[in-house]
């Protein structure tokens, strides 16, 4: 039985069969030398950070030390927290490696141990505990599909460790969908319900549209046309950060995003301007767009614009429960009309002027009905 050089002879590696995504795979369980393990350069978890880095230094394959620095400095990875936890409680779960020593699972644990070694003085007697690590190693006849199974098992299955961010998981699902794999097969492959796969495809559709719109140059000559003029990096960062807000949009107003392009453009702009701070605020975005009062609020520059628009919609949706409340609202409206300046009245849009005319007819009718009692 061939053994890789990075596994210690003692304790002797044990041949085991482990289940990965429903398929049994033979692995060797033993202790691997940290110095001979290669960190996973294509780890999607650090994809954005990696691209930012490559933009600065040029598109080239990252060295292991550079990878380590990225992991260490990316706040999403929380490497320092894991380092402290391992020093306190030890490492409970072995990492998984391919036969050539490339990490398939346990990137954070591996780099956290490297972090410990960096932190501990060379003379520290505890150092040797961290110079090797418990590992499962795939056999030399493992196929790329087997390696894919390990990735799915370790990163898509719920567990206590930090799973890949949603945006990263979604990119794997979408890639499979774009390659023409059936939704049901994707669901089996990633152990997700088919409905979640379909949702992910829809979210991706919105995110893709956002990326196109955000990276299109602004067009000063066309107030409706043109995009946001962001770089790909900037646009992707916004998309990744707001992935769950895009999910909320998918749930609440997927169809309007396809048919009302002006709304879509504005929604993307609001996303860039960080107008939303909660799911309920995203949820009302289309309602606000269709409501003239809420629309003007959400389109404003106030940092709490979405919150204020939601409050307005909530307030207007309330049933008037008493005569006093109705009278109060009418008083407020009349006062609002009285306070309007000539310039403001002149600049009222046609729709608002038509609404006022309609209101006037209604008021006359109401007034007649009230006086006939």
């Amino acid at each position, binding site marked *: 039985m061939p053994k890789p050089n990075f596994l210690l002879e003692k304790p002797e590696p044990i041949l085991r069969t482990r289940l990965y995504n429903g398929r049994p795979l033979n692995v060797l369980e033993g202790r691997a030398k940290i110095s001979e393990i290669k960190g996973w350069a294509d780890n999607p978890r650090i994809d954005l950070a990696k691209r930012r880095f490559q933009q600065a230094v040029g598109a080239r394959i990252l060295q292991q030390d550079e990878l380590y620095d990225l992991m260490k400095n990316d706040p999403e990875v929380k490497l320092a927290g894991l380092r402290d936890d391992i020093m306190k409680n030890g490492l409970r779960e072995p990492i998984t490696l391919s036969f050539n020593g490339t990490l398939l699972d346990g990137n954070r644990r591996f780099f956290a141990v490297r972090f410990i070694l960096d932190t501990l003085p060379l003379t520290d007697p505890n150092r040797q505990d961290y110079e090797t690590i418990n590992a499962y190693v795939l056999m030399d006849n493992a196929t790329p599909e087997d390696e894919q199974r390990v990735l799915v098992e370790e990163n898509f299955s719920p567990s206590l460790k930090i799973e890949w961010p949603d945006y990263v998981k979604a990119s794997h699902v979408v890639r499979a969908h774009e390659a023409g794999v059936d939704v049901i097969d994707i669901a089996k492959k990633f152990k997700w319900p088919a409905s979640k796969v379909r949702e992910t495809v829809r979210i991706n559709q919105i995110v893709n*549209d956002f990326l196109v*719109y955000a990276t*299109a140059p602004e067009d000063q000559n066309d107030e*409706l046309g043109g995009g946001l003029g962001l770089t790909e990096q900037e646009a992707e960062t916004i998309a990744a950060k707001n992935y769950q807000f895009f999910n909320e949009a998918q749930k609440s107003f997927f169809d309007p995003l396809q048919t009302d*392009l*002006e709304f879509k453009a504005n929604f993307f702009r609001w996303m860039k301007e960080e107008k939303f701070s909660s799911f309920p605020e995203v949820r009302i975005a289309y309602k606000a767009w269709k409501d003239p009062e809420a629309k003007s609020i959400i389109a404003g520059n106030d940092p709490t614009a979405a919150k204020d628009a939601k409050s307005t919609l909530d307030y207007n949706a309330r049933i008037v429960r008493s005569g006093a409340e109705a009278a109060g609202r009418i008083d407020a409206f009349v006062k609002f009309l009285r306070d309007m300046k000539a310039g403001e009245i002149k600049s009222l849009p046609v729709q608002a002027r038509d609404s006022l005319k309609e209101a006037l007819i209604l008021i006359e009718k109401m007034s007649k009905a009230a006086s006939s009692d």
Partner: protein
Amino acid sequence: MLYLNEKLIQESFLRLRQIEKGGKKGLERTSALMCFLAFDAFLKRTSINPPIDLDPETANGKTNRDILTREFVRLVQLKNGSEPYHVLNLGEIAIGGSLPDNRFSANFLTVPLKAATTSATVYDYPSRPKNPLLVLGLKATGIKWGIDRHRDWKANLPVFLQGRKTKAPFHDLACFVLRQRGFLSSAITLQDGITDGLAEIFTSELCSFWRTQLSLEKVYFGEFENPFQDTVPVSFLDCSWMGDIQPVNETVTFVSRVSYLEGLLRMHNIPFEK
């Protein structure tokens, strides 16, 4: 005279295909959309203000029907001949089967328009999806055989282009409409050229709406080098560019289906021939 680039027309046509194949949705929506466009083209051609009378018993109504039918045929027919190529569902080509003028008569003039003449309520067209484009009949138009635009047509029109591969449906629809039409324009950009072309066919109301959509969509359309040519494009003369979605011969499909069903009857000894 300017024409759209042949390759652009072909690429646009392919993008108009449905994302999910099958079902009646694509057929129904294409049919309703073409009726609406034909009605608007009718208004532009005749300069008559809507509502329009389509009464089959009056000379005026008959003429209006003929013009409207011609506009419909012009929109959906791709190639003349004994077995014309036509479009039942955007992005796909059908050969033979029911001819476009017969189809328009059966699907629009004979059924919904006639039904609307006796309807006690406002008759919306189409009835599915719930986003009508036109209104028909006395209650809605004041004319028994009347037809007019629905008041929400602007909000409803994009729904009829949903579920297709295109990210810029109004660009691709415009390329489809302008596939064989020359237009006067000194435009440099595709959007300006399309706008000039559409203005020759449709009313200012529809063109203004379409122009807005083109502006909003243009970031999703991407660049197309040399969008115009000065010769008539013959995009549908040879359909080899359609790859594995070659035109479907409706007549052949229908005949083979009947043969298959007859075979089933024979196999089970069920008499069906007198």
